[in-house]
């Protein structure tokens, strides 16, 4: 009986001493934090992906609480529903932003670019890029070693075994931008998903980042942009600009009409939908003109460079 009593007494005393110590320590190291930060954090997804640009969800919650309005920052993962909840907690207004998605701007599959070298090192694009420009003649294109796949927290990007290029799963992609940051070649871009027509989000982009002069780019890859400017001419919205021998479609201006897609002699412009047929050309044999075009373009290019 005595043993039981002593045990209980000792435990009670121990508990008391410990609680007193804890009380003082907790007081000493107390950090004041706006309780709203905790509330906001609880509605965020909690994946700590860093897609918002802040160190984890707690960082974003802090920034959101401090921010005057919510237009500039937000959770790309949770999107509008989460931001609505956040706005409710903070008593601020939600600013709707367009949904975005990661877009791979390289179409240099194994068929389109001949592999002339073989890389035998750690399978990492970041490491490979410090040693050489790529296994093919294109020094701008995708390595295909999968740094973007490693970076993705949402399992939304994978390397297609056939083409050796990354493929984005639109359903899973939250446009956090981790893949774009991981890519040493800056091939991945976060672009607007685009206006939805009949269930597909319509968007158009140049699937190439090659800045070489036309003739060089032409040789390097079957589907490289040679900067010929045909797409820019056909665009009614002035959405396409040519810089450093490379076309770029401004997602803000592009209306996704798809006029440029079939205009491109190198098939470097990609769209998520079937674009309208090109305007009828004088020459009735499309195959012949298709073949003739590529040779025309680089000639023009070299001319301009000589001037």
């Amino acid at each position, binding site marked *: 009986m005595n043993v039981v009593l002593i045990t209980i007494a000792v435990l009670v005393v121990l508990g008391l001493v410990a609680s007193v110590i804890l009380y003082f320590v907790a007081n000493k190291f107390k950090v004041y934090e706006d309780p709203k930060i905790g509330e906001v954090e609880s509605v965020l997804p909690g994946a700590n992906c860093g897609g918002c640009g802040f160190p984890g969800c707690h960082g974003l919650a802090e920034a959101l609480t401090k921010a005057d309005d919510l237009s500039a920052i937000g959770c790309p993962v949770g999107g509008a529903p989460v931001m609505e909840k956040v706005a409710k907690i903070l008593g601020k207004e939600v600013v709707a932003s367009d949904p975005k998605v990661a877009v791979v701007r390289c179409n240099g599959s194994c068929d389109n670019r001949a592999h002339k070298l073989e890389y*035998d090192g750690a399978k990492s694009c970041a490491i490979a890029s*410090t*040693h*050489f*420009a*790529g296994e093919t003649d294109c020094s701008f294109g995708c390595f295909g070693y999968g740094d973007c796949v490693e970076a993705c927290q949402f399992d939304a990007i994978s390397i297609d075994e056939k083409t050796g290029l990354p493929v984005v799963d639109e359903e899973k992609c939250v446009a956090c931008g981790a893949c774009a940051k991981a890519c040493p070649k800056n091939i991945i871009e976060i672009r607007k998903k685009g206006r939805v027509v009949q269930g597909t989000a319509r968007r158009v982009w140049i699937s190439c980042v090659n800045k070489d002069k036309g003739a060089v780019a032409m040789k390097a890859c079957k589907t490289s942009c040679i900067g010929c400017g045909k797409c820019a001419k056909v665009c009614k919205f002035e959405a396409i600009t040519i810089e450093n021998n490379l076309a770029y479609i401004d997602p803000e201006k592009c209306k996704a009409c798809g006029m440029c897609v079939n205009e491109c002699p190198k098939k470097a412009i990609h769209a998520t939908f079937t674009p309208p047929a090109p305007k009828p050309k004088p020459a009735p044999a499309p195959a012949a003109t298709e073949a003739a075009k590529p040779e025309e373009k680089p000639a023009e290019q070299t001319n301009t460079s000589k001037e």
Partner: protein
Amino acid sequence: MLKTFKIGGIHPNDNKLSAGSAIQVLPVPQEVTVPVAQHIGAPAKPVVAVGDTVKVGQLLAEAGGFVSANVHSPVSGKVKKIEDFIDGNGYRKTGIIITVEGDEWVETIDRSIGIKREITLAPADIIKKIGEMGLVGMGGATFPTHVKLAVPPGKKCEALIINGVECEPYLTSDHRLMLEKGEEVLIGVKILMTALGVHNAYIGIENNKKDAIEYLTKLAASYPGITVQPLKMRYPQGGEKQLIDACIGRQIPSGKLPIDVGAVVQNVGTAYAVYEAVQKNKPLIERVVCVTGKPLQKPSNFLVRIGTPVQAVIDAAGGVPENCGKVIGGGPMMGRAFTRLDVPVIKGTSGILLMSEEESKRGEMSPCIRCAKCVSVCPMGLEPFLISKVSMKGDWEMAEENHIMDCIECGSCNYTCPSNRPLLDYIRLGKGKVGGILRARAAAKKAAEEAAAAEKK
């Protein structure tokens, strides 16, 4: 009595296939590509225009900053293009492409055969001259020589150390140079000693070059102050830090430079170039390149004009063999693999190494067994397995804490790893990232200090 460095090191098979082949002069090619960036630091700025006629030794591009070097024409002829060419890594670099016509030299260059022993210039003039002649470190690091010779105020150079180690397997260009141009090398050393104002110079040579040690020791008898220091064969003895440790027993603390322990290190190739520049007025327009490798027909050493295509050099040694799987610029431990063979030889190309297909593939990787062999061979006393792992995981803070920036990228860890792990690949990646973080931190600190100073005012 053989000396060596104290920590780590490996003993790769030295394979000096071309050690017995005398230096041959390679004919001038029909066209050369002279890159404007052949050195560490800012690229040089071209001072010639397309269509200009240039002579051998004429200035093509002048130094583009404090750490930069002049570039001279290695041939005579017409400037065909000044534009981007694809370099050995596959990236675009600016180059001056010259079509060769004849072989007409600038008049000021002394082309006589005799050896000029007297040193007439004052120290400051020597350094100025070396800068004008576009000299860079010939061992492969290509750091501008005149910058290295300028001892910062408040520091004193006590010993000049000449690197004749050539610890990289296969390479023999320095070895042949010491054997064939020993006298010139020693005069070059003497000039460097005058420029630095030091009385002691040590020429470190590894024990696998007994003939060079013997020959230079004999010659050095008439050059007071120059000691030939035989060293045990061990890689990476040619590393600046290891060589200083081996020769004079001083270790450079982390983040410091050789001059902080009172030493300046120069390669024997640089010493020879210094002789030619100062005594003969000859800019750095050619260098000894060792072409070697097991599959190669005739491993040899050539005196090659800068800008000569690598392909032409290999052709002179018997051509690219059928089973060649890899061509490396430099030695097998630290050299870089070429992506193409039409790239030019530059100031830092000490060797061209060909490997057969079987030799060029890495072995299959398996998990780390924590055998600690990488730790025992690391010449910097680091833990390669650890810094490689944290770099792989992207933990840059941990990488910095474990002194990733001390790594000299010698490759001993990769060489020795029984699991064939790409340790150095990841360490290099980590070094790049941590270096970026350190620079950003330094810049932020400087900006904060400046802001504070401005506020005070």
